[in-house]
């Protein structure tokens, strides 16, 4: 093996050791969420559109992952909305909750506190009565976690 070939192979080796574990982690996290969404909603994540009609409020940095306030709101008439779903990408179980809405709710609004194991995207998904889905995503950085 000549010197140039040795150097190229070394660089490739170091690069793969550095980047591959990170890529694998990302793809595993994504697949867990995708599996959960497919199982519960019956559609794939790629079929769900991001929409400004869904307003997701959550802190950018949560002091504690044990207690993260999240609210989902929309101006879409409640008669057109079937349910609200919340998922956290990196939680051991990404599904957090789903709330069925009726016209008696008055408007599309749901607020709760959730547990997050680590920094992750939080996703709020609206299932509309016409069978379509709309989504809002926000990253929440978790610095400290605890069990209450």
């Amino acid at each position, binding site marked *: 093996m000549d010197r140039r070939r040795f150097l190229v192979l070394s660089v490739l080796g170091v690069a793969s050791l550095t980047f591959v574990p990170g890529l694998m982690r990302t793809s595993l996290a994504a697949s867990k969420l995708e599996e959960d969404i497919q199982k519960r909603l019956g559609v794939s994540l790629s079929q769900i559109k991001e929409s400004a009609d869904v307003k997701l409020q959550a802190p950018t940095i949560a002091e*504690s992952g044990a207690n993260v306030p999240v609210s989902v709101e929309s101006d879409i008439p409640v008669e057109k909305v079937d349910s609200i779903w919340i998922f956290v990408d990196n939680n051991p179980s990404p599904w957090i909750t789903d709330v069925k809405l009726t016209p008696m709710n008055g408007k599309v609004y749901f607020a709760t506190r959730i547990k997050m194991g680590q920094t992750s995207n939080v996703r709020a998904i609206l299932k509309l009565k016409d069978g379509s889905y709309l989504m809002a995503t926000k990253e929440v950085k978790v610095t*400290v976690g605890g069990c*209450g």
Partner: protein
Amino acid sequence: MIPMKKLIFVLVFLLGFAGASEWFSDPISGIEYAKKEQKPVMFYFHSEHCPYCLQMETFVFTDEKVSKYMDKFVVISLNVDTQVGRLWSKRFNVFGTPTFVFYDPKKDTVMSIAFGSRSKEDFIKLLFMACERSHIKKC
């Protein structure tokens, strides 16, 4: 067959804590030992099903730097689901896990209480601050 979780715990204890700070599960013996060794006490309140405790045990306590700082303390590890754990968690008003109570055995006073898991760096800062509040001269 040994459950995976138990196996991880045993490995963590053997690899991570061996030769590091003194760990006790009996508070009375731990406090007596701390008095004798003139060291402050860190109570570590944990529960079996709390992922944040597992995170601390797997990634933080096993770190060499953290372990070095923890050497300055006598650690009393208490599961809040046991009778002893419940008794002592009531005493210190521990409302969740993981909770770290830094305690001066000589004065029988609590120096500080911290709730929640932390990164290695933040946990070292916490230990350093607790160490400075104690009678130890070199922190």
